[in-house]
Structure formats: structure tokens, C-alpha cells
């Protein structure tokens, strides 16, 4: 079986918010990248931001300060 690993996954209710978060995280050097939304968090389609588990506080604070809405921020095991 392929290996998997736990990531912190942040979901958004629309793509515009995901794009804003991507820019913000790039500016603040929060590691990670955009992925398709995993089914554990939403059946359907859309984008999410995947980062390392230890980034939770920084990511959350950055989003709040920038006024970017997110939907969920959860640990998810993903294929690597």
C-alpha cells in the first residue's frame, strides 16, 4: 500500500478564499500547498490547503488577522 501521513487540512467554502489563503501563507512562509478537498472533510469538489500539523496556530492566527474565512481545519491522513 502507498504510504500516508497526517497533515493539517484547511477547507474553504469557496475558491476565492482558498486563493487568498494561498497568497497569505506564501507571504508568511507557512509551508504547504493547495490540494483537492479530501472526502473526509467534504463530499464533493473544491480546494483545500494542506500544511504540516505544527502550523495550526500560525495558520489560524494569520487567517483571522487577514479576515479570510475558512470552513474547517482538521488533521487528515493523506497519501504521500
Amino acid at each position, binding site marked *: *500500500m*502507498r504510504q500516508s501521513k497526517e497533515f493539517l487540512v484547511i477547507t474553504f467554502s469557496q475558491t476565492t478564499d482558498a486563493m487568498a489563503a494561498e497568497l497569505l501563507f506564501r507571504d508568511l512562509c507557512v509551508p504547504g500547498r493547495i*490540494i*483537492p*478537498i*479530501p*472526502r*473526509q472533510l467534504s*463530499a*464533493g*469538489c*473544491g480546494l483545500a490547503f494542506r500544511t504540516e500539523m505544527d502550523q495550526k496556530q500560525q495558520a489560524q492566527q494569520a487567517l483571522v488577522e487577514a479576515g479570510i474565512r475558512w470552513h474547517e481545519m482538521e488533521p487528515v491522513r*493523506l*497519501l504521500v
Partner: protein
Amino acid sequence: MIYLDNAATTMHKPQTVIDAVVHAMTSMGNASRGAHTGALEASRTIYETRRKIAKLFGCKRPDHVVFTCNSTEALNIAIQGAIPAKSHVITTDLEHNSVLRPLYRLKEESGVCLDFARADRQGRLDLQELEGLIRPDTKAIVCTHMSNLTGEIVDIARIGRMTKDRGILLCVDASQSAGNTPIDMEQMGIDILCFTGHKGLMGPQGTGGMCIREGVEIHPLKEGGSGVQSYRHRQPVEYPTRLEAGTLNGHGLAGLSAALDYILETGVETIGRKERMLAEHFYEGVSQIEGVKVYGCFEDKNRGPVVALNVREYDSSEVSDVLSVDYDIATRPGAHCAPRMHEALGTVDQGAVRFSFSWFNTVEETDQAIEAVRKIALA
């Protein structure tokens, strides 16, 4: 990148399309707004585009070709503008949200009664069942020509024979089939044909439209500038102006015009044959891999160039992500804006990874995609 997401939009366009857009952006005025050289060039280019669309789809009148920014807009105009309140409408499980949502809205806001022709586990419709849904108060059948999820083709001509003598409006979503499957509105009995310019038609995004059969009345969704009859209070009643308030995407339509030249010269059959060959080759490769489940019915060779699958119990999003990051292969995961089809196929939870092929894909690319799926599926 190996681009296999052509059902979402074609990324490789003929060079002539790109050149036409660049040329238009340096020479076009506003169509139907004045008579200087630039404005006339825009008017002429757009009229030529109407003629080519009419030719491609067997629409008798170029002035009944209306341009919109995509098929979603065309479907909204058609569904909201041609279906009377409180009437009965039939649609299918295969539909995209651009059909479903405007219909659900009519149901909620205008008392329209909606019935669905069901898809089986392989995503096929039973047209006899569909015919059985017709009632005396049925006013419209809205149906896709080709499923964006499985590539299933619906026998529109057969539905056209059901609607013709009953005075039922037949509105067809040709978003996936336009450019790869022959369409003849007259022969197929289509009243309104909605298309998008950026998929199989190989044009720029922001182009699309509808072909309207003579005598079909559609109430405009928008009112506004038209460049003609300026002192009238309301939108002119003549097509296409009736449904085209505001400046058209002339630059995009110039590109679509060049794309239509390319398609008409190459031939829809030729393009479709190659795309189907690639999809079939891919299907044959992946369907033999242990742990791969392909959706849809492949016994019928007359199908769209789309193959949707899942690998083991993996989330389709993760598989698509691995394909992108590790193999540089572009596919689409998740739900494909076709919720009822996912219910029929049993893929609501897992979604599906969709591989969709275009005229510009090659057998080598297809082989690489098969190999990537094989590696991902390795236990």
C-alpha cells in the same frame, strides 16, 4: 504536463485561435455599436462566427445563434426564459448542475413540477422510461447529449421524436459533445441547443451560446444596450439581440471563429474518432489493473472521450493529487457537478478521477497515464 482534463476545458488550442484573439484585441471595436472600421470588423467577425456555429449544428438561421459567456448562461436563459410556471418538466440523472440548479430554482420559485429519468448503476438511461414520464401538461424535456462523468451519449434524436408531435420543448446541453460528436438540430428535433466554446470547440473561455429553432420563444433574462432600437423601453424582440444585452465577448468569439474553422476543416467525425480511440485505449489499459474500478458502460463504442475511475478505496482527490504531483498528469477528482449521476454510480463518497481526452493528446501520453494508474494501484 500531460493534460487529461479536457472535459473541464481544453488547454491546447490551435495556434490559429490564439492568433485570432491577439489580432482581435488589436483591431476590434464594439460589434453593432457604430460603423467605423473597428466596429464593423467586430460585427462581421461575430456574424461569421454565428454562421459557422449554425453550420456545425445544423441550425437553419445564423440569426438564431445567440452568444453567451458559456453554456451555463445559455442554459439559464433557456430554462428560465422558455419554461412556463407551474408546468411539468422532465430531465435526467445525467445532468450537470448548470441544468439541475436552474430547474430546482423553477421548482422552488415557479411551481414547476420536475421528474427525472433514472440512470442505472452504469449511468445509462432507459428512454422508454423517460417517455413514460410524459404527461399532458409536460412542457419541456431538458437533457444532456453527453455525460461529463461517464461519457454516456444520450440518443437525442429518439427523444426528439417523442417531443416533436406533442408540442414539448426539447432543450439539449451539448457542452461535452460539441466538437466531437455530430449534431444536427433539425434532424434530431432539438428546439434549443446550448453549447460552451472552451471545451471540445477549442475556443477561449468566456464564449458559448445557444441555437434556437425558428418559432421558439425565449423571454430575455437581461435587458440593456443593443446598438439598435435605442428608444424602445424594452429589449428588442428579434433574435439574437433579444438575448444579447450588453457588449459581447468579441475577442473571444474571434478565437471561437478560428476554432470553428479548424473543426470544420478537420471534421467532427475525425476529431471524435481520435478522441474515442484514445479513451478506449486508456480504458483497455486501466480496466485490467487490479484494484481499478471504471464507471460507465463501455460495450457501446459510441461514447464520449471520458473515463472515470477509482483506485482501490483511495479518495479520488488523493489519487488525482498524486497523479498531478508525482506524474504531472492533470485529471479531475471529486464530484463533477453532476450529483445525481454520482448517486446512480454509487460514487458520492469516493468521487471519481476523470480522465478526458482531446484531439491534441497522443497515444504515448495515454500510455503514460495507464502506467501511472498502474503504479498507484500497486498493493
